[in-house]
């Protein structure tokens, strides 16, 4: 009986070629992540916009060199960057003294985001081990042959009771599209912020549909607190993910212009449960392609 082996110490699941150059850090993206998860570097000190620009430049350079578009690396970057953004948002939320339960919950939520990031990284590494093991094991082929005719002849005669019509009904059942099974409700491990991202998305949606393209500054001009600004920003990211809006930005850190790209029938109900503790069945259904 063999056991799966662990990769050598210090070896990461994927050797990402992407390097980050920041004021307070220079090195591989993986190393940055590792520092943040070990809390050796404060996430609020990391300029995520710069990291993202660097990454886009990196991918462009790869394309120009004619190298294959690294889809896995890009999607992995997106997942990690999105988590870092969550993390940063959670950190930037006004905190002050820990006075009531809500504040405590918020602090715990931050830890949960750390945990989520760590968890994701761990599974990614395990996935690497799985991949290698499956490949190594794939070099063995099992004996899976049909029964020798002499033994097949011993099998009891089949009892067959189906008429051609009944058989056709069976076939129809087999061909019928499978209904998407119901999904779980709620993500209880994520905190519910006092400002609903979905509500803010509805507000943004209403304004964009009526007023045409607007800048992010204009969209948040009336925000009564920083929390609302953060919620609107997150809402925009969600809407972008849902292809409800498009962004235009002439230069890095320049004015961000937001344009409506969805139809009139779009509603904020479509948005994810990620920030608001709501049922997520709807979205799951719609994405079940």
């Amino acid at each position, binding site marked *: 009986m063999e056991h799966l082996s662990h990769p050598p110490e210090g070896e990461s699941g994927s050797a990402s070629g992407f390097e980050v150059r920041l004021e307070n850090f220079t090195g591989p993206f993986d190393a940055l992540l590792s520092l943040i998860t070990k809390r050796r570097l404060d996430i609020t000190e990391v300029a995520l916009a710069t990291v993202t620009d660097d990454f886009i430049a990196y991918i462009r350079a790869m394309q120009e060199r004619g190298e294959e578009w690294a889809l896995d690396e890009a999607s992995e970057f997106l997942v990690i960057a999105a988590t870092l953004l969550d993390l940063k948002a959670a950190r930037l939320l006004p905190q002050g003294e820990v006075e009531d339960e809500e504040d405590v919950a918020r602090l715990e939520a931050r830890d949960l985001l750390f945990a989520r990031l760590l968890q994701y990284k761990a599974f990614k590494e395990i996935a690497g081990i799985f991949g290698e093991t499956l490949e190594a094991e794939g070099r063995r*082929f*099992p*004996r*899976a*042959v*049909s*029964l*020798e005719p*002499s*033994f*097949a002849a*011993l*099998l*009891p*005669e*089949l*009892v*067959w009771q*189906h*008429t*051609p*019509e009944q*058989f*056709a*009904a*069976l*076939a*129809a*059942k*087999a*061909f*019928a599209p*499978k209904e998407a099974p119901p999904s779980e409700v709620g993500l209880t491990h994520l905190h519910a912020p006092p400002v609903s991202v979905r509500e803010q998305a509805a507000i943004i949606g209403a304004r964009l549909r009526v007023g045409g393209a607007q800048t992010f500054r204009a969209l948040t001009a009336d925000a009564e607190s920083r929390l609302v600004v953060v919620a609107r920003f997150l809402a925009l990211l969600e809407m972008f993910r849902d292809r409800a809006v498009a962004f235009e930005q002439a230069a890095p850190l320049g004015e961000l212009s937001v344009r409506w790209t969805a139809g009139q029938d779009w509603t904020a109900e479509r948005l994810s449960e990620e920030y608001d503790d709501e049922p997520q069945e709807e979205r799951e259904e719609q994405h079940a392609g």
Partner: protein
Amino acid sequence: MQGDRRAAALEAVLMVVDEPVSSAELAATLELPEPEVEELLTGLAAEYDAAGRGFELRSVAGGWRFYSRPEFAEIVSHYVLEGQTSRLTQAALETLAVIAYRQPVPRSRVAAIRGVNVDSVVRTLVSRGLVEEAGTDPESGAILYQTTSYFLERLGIGSVAELPRLSPHLPGLDELGAIEFER
């Protein structure tokens, strides 16, 4: 390739192939002269016989295959018949239905339609004589499966063309024809 390695390579292939393989085919794969392969195969068969192994290597109808030794037929048939029923499982029936209406079809397509792995069920259907191999897909090289005349006989129809049309049971199936099920 050295003597022992050549024989071992033959053992490796023959242990996992389902259909008997001709010495000519084996010779081509191993890039060895056919007489040499014949000699190696005969040598292996004699070795298993002399050592009284539970398996034997036999050349049947122009192909070589591993079989269980007839001496143990009683134990083997006891094992084979254990838990056997005379009815097909629901999974086997549905798989058979998909093959009947989509033949010739590779297992991967049947798996995609049924949403589960069907490898072992297809082997059961083959053992039961209801389904048989029908060449390989020219593009993917995957083995294609079709129903047998025994299947027609059991169903009481003369040909596959006499299978009831599916549309009465599933309105709109015709439109499904063009949809690609594989992923």
